[in-house]
């Protein structure tokens, strides 16, 4: 067997650090032990790792306590600080870069710790799993589960301890509190609270008897927040009667504060908990009669010892047998099991992982760049150090000094970086945009702070060792002879050039990303909805309960509100316009030719249906392109008429005149014929942003022919008005007609637009931050490599100058070197950016992924930065005096 060799680099390191009299013996001892280990059968990798650990431990011991004792450490720190003060530009740049690198990492680590590591605030949360349905025939997933199916799952599975169903995406009208409100509700099984460890502070929780069809009396439990906000923390609220969607319920309990409900994983926090079995009464759905009715989510607790893979396998088998037994309802559906943490952070984990990788990359680039700077600085100090060595300074002592310098620099960067991160965490906590669940706590402590500390120390050590290796390579006599120029060969320069190229390329890609996002954000700001949003406020109503089962009371309320609103002094005009935004999606399928629909179901047209008054289009500033507006003659007794959007007309009747064409659609459960009487310009009712639902296929129907339950009222204001005072005035109007009806979500279109923009602003800001970091690092890299080259070539520059080269020529040659590398990097970046921008395509708005302006601007910025970074070393080259350069030897 060939005798094992210790890792060369570790041996070199030890050679430099150990005092000469013990060096050989210690290296020999380590090698001997390595051989013993290998002959005892330790693997190559493990024994090499062992050697490294020992080498680093010994280096650390000698570097810190050295051949002398601890007394020198304080003076080393003082010397280091003096050295750093002597070269303030180096210190500021290096410590600043380190601070940014450490700061970004600490910040992202804090976020990642909260999202990946912190336990969820539920008992045995690691065993909790959410179950919903995937459907193989659909691009959109995340169907709910069916009640009837889950009853069989509960009976037949072999992996679950407990299960609870809930339906948490509905709002209900609540009255009987201080003022009627539309509140977020959660319909839950009686096991729900026990599974999540939620308890009542007052009253009692649901019992099995409350949770069955036709329970003795309908009951409800308030969340702590709702109890405070809606009932003024009334201590006697238990036993109190409230109206929900117009039906009487009794409050039987109030939850304890501080527990986050599952509804908040995707939506807002629950205000009111209702028994699952009030779904038919309150929402009009009959889940127990239709196996294909998938509305619920299941929260399950796995049996101890059962892992997710086993549970998934069991559910796979269950879905297969359910699909065989009840083919019609279950064909194509499979169960999707997600750990609760994943469900809570589904929108956060992937971006956080990307940010984490980005932060690591930044730190890596920072380290490489600062090491570069230190090496350059070390070359400048080679003579000083060589002199000290020649005068008898122990290498260990010198290494200790250099290591201390690295550690001091690292410590400055680490402390400043942590302060930056602390400030950033404060900022993140205030950003509701992150939409983190309420229990998430962003704190710069625990694992994040520990890791930051470790990173900082490792960074400092790496910096110190790098400059030690840079300074101490070779014997003192080599060093003295070689002066400041003997340092590294062409391969070193090539390595650094490659580094700069990749930094430039990365900066290019990130800058293009940021540029495109900013551009798309600006386009978005200039984009309208296709209707006039100036001084427009929208208000919502949802007419629930028996009294609104007929159309006429619905119409009466709507008309009373419109008339009442118009009488308010601040309101110029009010009009009905329903439903708009906020996902009251009234989807209709238009059948333009029934035979064709049967034959080609994929040709059916899905449109969203809105209800308007005569004159609404004009008041919204929408253009009637063809035909006529609705008129008061279009009422219940007359022909059913519709106005369609421009896009829909083009989609369904391309190149034809749609006026007078007919289509059929279900309305109120009956398939009815409708006649198109007009075409109106497109309006973006949902969002100005990328619309996943494709083109604006809208049909408008007169409110006089069908009064919807969900409706929007538009108010054109005379002046800016406070939304909450307006809401109070509107509530007063509605109170006259129906004291239990909430008027909700009163907000100006300006506000809604700002909310909508906030998300794209946030992502633009984050990408821009990373792009700025990458740019700064490239500048630093270019500066470093050129400064180094200039120092290396001092003699050549001196000779050139002595031979008559002008200052301009000298500077040009330095800048040319820098620009060549930068342009090459930018070229690579261009290709990368074209590829990356394509990925961004989906979130861009109104800007092409290859937008020439953005690419041009990025190129210009990068080159300008490159020139700026080149100019300092170029100036230094220009200042080289031929006589001094030649004398340097």
């Amino acid at each position, binding site marked *: 067997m060939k005798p094992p060799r210790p890792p060369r680099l570790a041996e070199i390191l030890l050679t430099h650090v150990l005092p000469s009299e013990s060096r050989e013996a210690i290296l020999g001892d380590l090698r001997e032990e390595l051989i013993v280990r290998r002959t005892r059968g330790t693997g190559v990798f493990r024994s090499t790792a062992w050697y490294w650990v020992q080498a680093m431990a010994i*280096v650390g011991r000698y570097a810190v306590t050295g051949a002398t004792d601890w007394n020198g450490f304080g003076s080393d720190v003082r010397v280091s600080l003096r050295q750093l003060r002597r070269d303030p530009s180096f210190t500021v740049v290096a410590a600043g870069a380190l601070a940014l690198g450490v700061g970004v990492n600490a910040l992202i680590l804090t976020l990642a710790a909260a999202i990946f590591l912190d336990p969820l605030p539920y008992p045995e949360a690691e065993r909790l799993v959410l179950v919903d349905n995937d459907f193989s025939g659909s691009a959109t997933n995340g169907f709910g589960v069916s009640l009837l199916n889950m009853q069989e799952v509960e009976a037949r599975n072999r992996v679950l301890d407990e299960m609870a169903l809930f339906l948490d995406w509905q709002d209900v009208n609540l009255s009987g509190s201080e003022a009627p409100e539309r509140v977020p509700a959660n319909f839950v099984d009686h096991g729900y609270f026990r599974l999540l460890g939620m308890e009542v502070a007052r009253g009692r929780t649901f019992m099995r008897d409350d949770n069955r069809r036709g329970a003795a009396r309908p009951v409800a439990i308030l969340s702590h927040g709702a109890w405070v906000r809606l009932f003024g923390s009334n201590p006697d609220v238990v036993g109190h009667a409230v109206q929900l969607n117009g039906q009487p319920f009794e409050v039987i309990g109030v939850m304890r504060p501080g527990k986050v409900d599952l509804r908040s994983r995707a939506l807002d926090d629950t205000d009111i908990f209702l028994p699952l079995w009030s779904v038919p009464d309150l929402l009009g759905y009959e889940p127990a009669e239709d196996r294909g009715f998938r509305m619920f989510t299941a929260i399950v607790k796995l049996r101890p010892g059962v892992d997710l893979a086993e549970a998934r396998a069991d559910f796979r088998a269950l879905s297969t047998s359910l699909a065989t037994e009840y083919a019609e309802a279950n064909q194509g559906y499979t169960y999707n099991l997600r750990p609760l943490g994943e469900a809570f952070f589904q929108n956060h984990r992937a971006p956080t992982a990307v940010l984490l990788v980005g932060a690591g990359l930044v730190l890596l680039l920072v380290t490489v760049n600062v090491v570069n700077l230190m090496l350059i600085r070390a070359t400048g100090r080679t003579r000083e150090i060589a002199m000290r060595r020649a005068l008898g300074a122990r290498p260990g002592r010198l290494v200790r000094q250099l290591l201390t310098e690295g550690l001091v620099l690292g410590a400055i960067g680490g402390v400043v970086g942590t302060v930056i991160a602390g400030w950033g965490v404060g900022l993140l906590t205030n950003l509701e945009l992150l939409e983190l669940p309420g229990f998430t706590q962003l704190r710069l402590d625990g694992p994040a702070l520990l890791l930051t500390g470790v990173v900082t120390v490792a960074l400092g050590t790496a910096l110190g060792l790098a400059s030690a290796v840079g300074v101490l390579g070779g014997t003192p006599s080599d060093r003295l002879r070689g002066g400041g120029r003997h340092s590294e060969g062409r391969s070193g320069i090539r390595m650094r050039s490659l580094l700069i190229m990749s930094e430039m390329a990365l900066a290019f890609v990130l800058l293009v990303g940021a540029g495109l996002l900013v551009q798309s954000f600006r386009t978005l700001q200039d984009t309208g909805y296709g209707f006039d949003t100036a001084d427009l406020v929208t208000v919502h109503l949802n007419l629930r309960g028996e009294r609104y089962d007929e159309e006429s009371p619905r119409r009466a309320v709507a008309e009373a509100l419109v008339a009442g609103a118009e009488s308010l002094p601040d309101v110029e005009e009010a009009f009905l316009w329903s439903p708009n935004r906020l996902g009251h999606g009234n989807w209709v399928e238009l059948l333009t030719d029934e035979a064709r629909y049967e034959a080609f179901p994929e040709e059916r047209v899905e449109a969203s249906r809105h209800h308007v008054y005569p004159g609404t289009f004009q008041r919204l500033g929408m253009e009637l392109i063809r035909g006529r507006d609705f008129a008061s003659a279009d009422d219940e007794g007359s022909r059913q008429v519709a106005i369609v959007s421009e896009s829909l007309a083009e989609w369904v009747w391309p190149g034809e005149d749609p006026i007078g064409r007919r289509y059929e659609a279900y309305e109120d459960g009956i398939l009815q014929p409708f006649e198109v009487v007009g075409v109106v310009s497109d309006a973006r009712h949902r969002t100005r942003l990328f619309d996943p639902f494709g083109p604006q296929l809208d049909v408008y129907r007169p409110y006089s022919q069908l009064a919807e339950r969900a409706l929007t009222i538009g108010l054109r204001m005379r002046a800016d008005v406070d939304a909450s005072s307006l809401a109070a005035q509107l509530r007063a109007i509605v109170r006259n007609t129906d004291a239990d009806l909430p008027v909700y979500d009163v907000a100006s279109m300006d506000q809604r637009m700002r909310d909508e923009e906030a998300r794209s602003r946030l992502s633009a800001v984050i990408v821009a931050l990373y792009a700025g970091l990458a740019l700064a690092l490239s500048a630093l890299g270019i500066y470093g490599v050129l400064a180094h080259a200039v120092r290396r070539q001092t003699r050549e520059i001196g000779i050139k100058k002595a031979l008559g080269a002008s200052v301009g020529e000298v500077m040009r040659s330095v800048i040319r070197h820098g620009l060549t590398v930068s342009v090459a990097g930018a070229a690579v970046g261009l290709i990368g950016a074209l590829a990356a921008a394509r990925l961004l395509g989906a979130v861009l708005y109104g800007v092409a992924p290859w937008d020439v302006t953005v690419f041009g601007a990025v190129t210009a910025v990068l080159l300008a930065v490159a020139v700026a970074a080149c100019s300092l070393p170029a100036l230094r080259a220009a200042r080289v005096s031929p006589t001094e350069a030649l004398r340097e030897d």
Partner: protein
Amino acid sequence: MGRKGFLGEFELLVMLAVVRIGKDAYGVRIREEIERQTGRSVARGAVYVTLDRLVRKGLLASHLAGPTPERGGKAKRFYRVEAAGLDAIRHSRAMLRQMERGIEALLEES
């Protein structure tokens, strides 16, 4: 040197190990001896740094022995105790005994 003759706890352990091993006392053996006798794990760097210090204090003497192939051609440094070193060990023991006098019973108990 005002502290001459005074040994720290770890220094004492290293000195005693060198005495116990005798002729064959070099880095690897010394560390093993301390680990074997005290049952505690000892960092190599600590041993080497301490050996260097004890040599500088004149308590240990060392010499290089011929290189062997299994050590990659590296020489071994052997250590032996100087007279001053033995004095230091005796001094440390005497100090310990002095400090223990009168409280032996108490120390035995625990």
